[in-house]
């Protein structure tokens, strides 16, 4: 029956011809080429940096790749990296978790109760407009110079991103899904679990992706302001001593951490949103 063939074609079924194989091979070659070119760009950048250092630009300002590499290597071996990175990651993780949990719950709540959302709207907009970094000194007064103030800064930043995204996601839910689920016998909890949360998921995940770097930023800024441990402290201390090599090493550590977390989130997104092609 031709209907069956059409259906097989509609889902990319078993009609695997030579052309399919050729198209896949071409896509594979393109991927390899992209990876190679990326490596070339990286190598070129490091070469340029190395070349510029001491010839065009003072080494004091931009250090040099070899010095930064050596510094990183020393940090890895003498335990400096683990000691400082662990505290930064710990504060980032807590700030991220607290900001996400509170933001998600409040976003759901406001999304469901429009009246409350409208009443609070101007205040939320006002608080949202404050650069959250301006709250950091306040948090240091409240929570001291320990890890709690760093957690608070990153939680405050993450909270707003997740809260607003969850709220928009809930408002965007297609009402037809809500109606049919109720008519089929679903309770309010069922609607929340099977319709609202999954429907808002793409918004929430976008929020998560945006807020991970923010969480890191929040922690590092807290560490800049007052601390005696953490990557932010390390960078800040090195800046005070005009030790640019350590500053660059610290920045590279932060960039690497951010990239690793973002990659992990990309896989998480691909899994949660696997229904979307």
């Amino acid at each position, binding site marked *: 029956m031709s209907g069956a063939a*059409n*259906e097989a074609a*509609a*889902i*990319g079924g078993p009609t695997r011809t030579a052309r399919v194989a050729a198209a896949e091979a071409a896509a594979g070659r393109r991927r390899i080429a992209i990876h190679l070119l990326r490596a070339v760009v990286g190598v070129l950048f490091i070469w340029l940096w190395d070349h510029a250092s001491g010839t065009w630009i003072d080494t004091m300002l931009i250090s040099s790749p070899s010095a930064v590499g050596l510094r990183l290597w020393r940090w890895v071996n003498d335990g400096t990296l683990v000691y400082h990175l662990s505290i930064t990651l710990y504060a980032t993780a807590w700030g991220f978790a607290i900001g996400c949990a509170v933001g998600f719950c409040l976003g759901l709540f406001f999304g469901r109760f429009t009246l409350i959302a409208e009443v609070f709207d101007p205040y939320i907009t006002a608080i949202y407009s404050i650069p959250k970094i301006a709250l950091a000194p306040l948090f240091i007064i409240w929570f001291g110079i320990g890890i709690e103030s760093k957690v608070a800064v990153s939680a405050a930043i993450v909270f707003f991103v997740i809260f607003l995204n969850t709220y928009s996601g809930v408002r965007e839910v*297609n009402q*037809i*899904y809500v*109606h*049919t*689920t*109720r*008519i*089929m*016998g*679903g*309770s309010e909890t*069922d609607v929340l679990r*099977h*319709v609202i949360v*999954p*429907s808002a*998921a793409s918004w929430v995940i976008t929020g998560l992706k945006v807020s991970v770097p923010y969480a890191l930023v929040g922690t590092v800024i807290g560490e800049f302001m007052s601390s005696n441990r953490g990557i932010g402290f390390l960078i800040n201390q090195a800046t005070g001593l005009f030790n640019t090599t350590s500053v660059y090493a610290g920045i590279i550590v932060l960039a690497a951490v951010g990239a690793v977390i973002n990659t992990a989130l990309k896989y998480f997104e691909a899994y949660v949103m*696997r*229904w*979307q*092609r």
Partner: protein
Amino acid sequence: MTASIAITAVRKSYVARGREVLALDRVDLDIAPGEFVAFVGPSGCGKSTLMNMIAGILPIEEGRILHDGRPVNGINRNVGYMTQQDAVLPWRTVEDNIALPLRFHGMAGPARRARVEEMLAAVGLTGFARSFPGELSGGMRKRVAIAQLLAYEPGTLLMDEPFGALDAQLKLLMQEQLLRIWTERRQTVVFVTHDLAEAVTLAQRVVVFSGRPGRIKQIENVQLPPTLDVFRVRFLPEFEAAYTRLWDALAPEIRSGEAA
């Protein structure tokens, strides 16, 4: 015998842009258990509004609707509801979608899986249990919606232009499938459509609504010999007679709507 759906003096108006718009004006209609009724009428005549009131999605402010003897007040969980828009959840697989109402009704796991298999077979989608709706064609998604609608065996089906978005050939296939299912199970069906031929093919009774405000203008009892051949039925003289009478009732409503 009491009516499955008893609509008494239902009136519905909306307030929009500082004006009250009357959508439905004093509608009375009894629908018998096991009857297949189609609503036709120009756009904006309130036929979907009436159906959404039976489903309990829209509140009934004036008049009364009884379903199986109970007044409709809030979401009506004793009906099955299907619209032109795809309502199968895109983030659940085909089998999870069909199983959803069964879970809500407390059916145990093994029985649920057996029923899902049975429904997939009934709509010809065996083997697509683990696909996501986004991976299927429009017609296949409609069949998933029908399987889901029938899985929990609601006694009354409310269908608002369910096949409206499909191409003409696919529409015929879906009509045939629906007619076969209805012939076997004899649910009460309320079927809203723009397509007169579809109404005459499927329904035992076709209700024509006038343009805004919606009133019942005419009710046509369609008497066709029992058949499942939704294509050839169009060439019967009874079909033509019913179609012509309905068109004569409907055409002036559509024209006045276009002129306004």
